[in-house]
């Protein structure tokens, strides 16, 4: 799974939605590190998902340069990119597919138009379902699963791609504590196996505990990046989120954000 040069490098990236008054992404320069968990953080509308779409080549940059694996992102075909990068997007429709059929879609980039599933595909599908603990309901239809189970099916589909890089857009939104922790533990174990992980999340505390590298976006700009202790500070988080917070260190030394009751004007 591991492929060390599969990481992003962004230089002076700008993006403006057609007809918008200001840049959604403003002058972002950024490099992701292979074999790390990188978390993109920021308030609603900061440009996290937009940045992800630019990195994945589904939105074109207005100016600047995005390279993945030392090649311009625009030079990648969708199939070639899908063989390296597994994506867990937000919001999908739910046609009448079984769990196995859904996970098997992770093998589509590796199969010719008329080609049948090979032994190696079946092995990858089974391994991905096992790793995400969805193998026990392989024959059930998606609509009969809970939200947490469905999210694990999407993750299993991305793992069936045997990707060197895994990208997740708010993977734990709407999950309860248990399922959120299960998801973050899984990301850590994937990282330990050499998979590069890039995720967008609103959970600052779990990002601080599990990610190696944090990128804090605000109004389309990177306002802080680096190790959790340097990004998650009382001053930065209060200012960016426009709400007073206190930051404490937990037993592992990871900073934990505690939002304060509102008292008058924020900083």
């Amino acid at each position: 799974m591991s492929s060390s040069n599969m990481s992003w490098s962004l230089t002076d990236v700008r993006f403006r939605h057609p007809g918008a008054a200001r840049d959604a992404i403003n002058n972002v320069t950024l490099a992701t590190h292979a074999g790390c968990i990188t978390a993109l953080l920021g308030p609603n509308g900061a440009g996290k998902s937009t940045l992800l779409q630019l990195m994945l080549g589904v939105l074109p940059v207005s100016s600047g340069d995005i390279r993945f694996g030392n090649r311009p992102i625009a030079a990648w075909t969708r199939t070639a990119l899908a063989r390296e990068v597994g994506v867990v997007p937000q919001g999908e429709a739910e046609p009448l597919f079984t769990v196995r059929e859904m996970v098997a879609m992770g093998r589509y980039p590796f199969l010719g138009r008329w080609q049948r599933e090979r032994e190696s595909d079946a092995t990858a599908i089974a391994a991905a379902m096992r790793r995400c603990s969805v193998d026990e309901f392989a024959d059930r239809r998606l609509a009969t699963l809970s939200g947490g189970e469905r999210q694990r099916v999407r993750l299993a589909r991305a793992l069936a791609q045997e990707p060197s890089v895994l990208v997740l857009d708010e993977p734990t939104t709407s999950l309860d504590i248990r399922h959120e922790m299960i998801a973050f533990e899984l990301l850590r174990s994937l990282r330990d196996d050499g998979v590069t992980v890039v995720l967008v999340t609103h959970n600052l505390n779990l990002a601080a505990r599990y990610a190696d590298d944090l990128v804090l976006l605000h109004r389309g700009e990177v306002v802080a990046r680096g190790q959790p202790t340097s990004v998650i500070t009382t001053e930065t988080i209060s200012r960016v989120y426009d709400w007073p917070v206190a930051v404490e260190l937990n037993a592992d030394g990871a900073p934990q954000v505690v939002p304060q009751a509102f008292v008058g004007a924020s900083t």
Partner: protein
Amino acid sequence: MESTSAGAIALPARTRVHYGMPVSMRLLALAVILALALVAAIRLGAVSLSTTALLDAVTGRGDASTVAIVRQLRMPRALQAALVGAALAVSGATFQALLRNALAEPYILGVSSGAAFGAVATVVTGWSMRSVWALPAAAFAGAIGSMLLVFRIAFSVGRALDARVLLLAGVVVSSFLVALIWLVLTFADTESVRSAIFWMMGSHAGASWRSVSILATCLVPSLAVLFALARPLNLLAVGESTAAYLGTNVERTKLIAFAVATLLAAVSVAVSGTIGFVGLVVPHAMRLLWGSDNRALLPCAALAGGAFLVGADTLSRTLAGANELPIGVVTALIGVPCFVWLLRRPAAL
């Protein structure tokens, strides 16, 4: 990481899907049903034939009038119904995947009203009397014209092809053409109005070997293109960004699939008028039986759509004695209860 949760155990057995038979057996079963429907369609009618009489007629050994009925009337008619049913069902299945909308059907991009406008124009101007091909040609031109107009509107709204905009453009163009049709018919004579309305209700009475061969020529390559797109269609049914992330060229796939599915509907409408519910109900029935995987769904829908329409056409010829019921009435009378039943099913399936 999660042991069997209580919810998983408590779920009723039917939420577990065991498709029962492999794809090849499903296709074989549906092919047998289609073959039986075709045989029944050729045997039944004002003159019903025994199996031996049927075989004699097909091989040209029976009496001349029976041979003519079978070879010139019933065989092309049954085959046309099968081809149109297959085209409409595959077209509907494709639109439902592309639009991620259960209510999508083959005429959604204004094909039927475009074709109807073309047909009404030839009837009212009297051109339909000059050549048997004037009406189907005008209907086809109307269908393609309205499709191009719908695409033109959809593309002028945004850079990419937005399914919702396309859907709305289809509805608006349809309404406009229907208004034009009624405007024209307001000033037409009674006989023109009568034949226009009859055409709009759909019929296979005009079937000939030539219409069958035109249909087959369009249907075979179109089906091949859509079958080749089965995997990308599966992905598009889940979501457009998901499809892109799993290696699909989304815009190109959508454009090809929309165009081919609309072409299938346009050719069908041109030879047999607007026949409702085949394109809506047949793909849904196949999906509820065997799931959304288009690699199996598209060929199954083609065979089942063919069998359904051959059956409906046979009923339309035989139910009311000497009178022929419009086939659109038969498919709707069967299709509407089916559709209500579909809507009332638990959404969880």
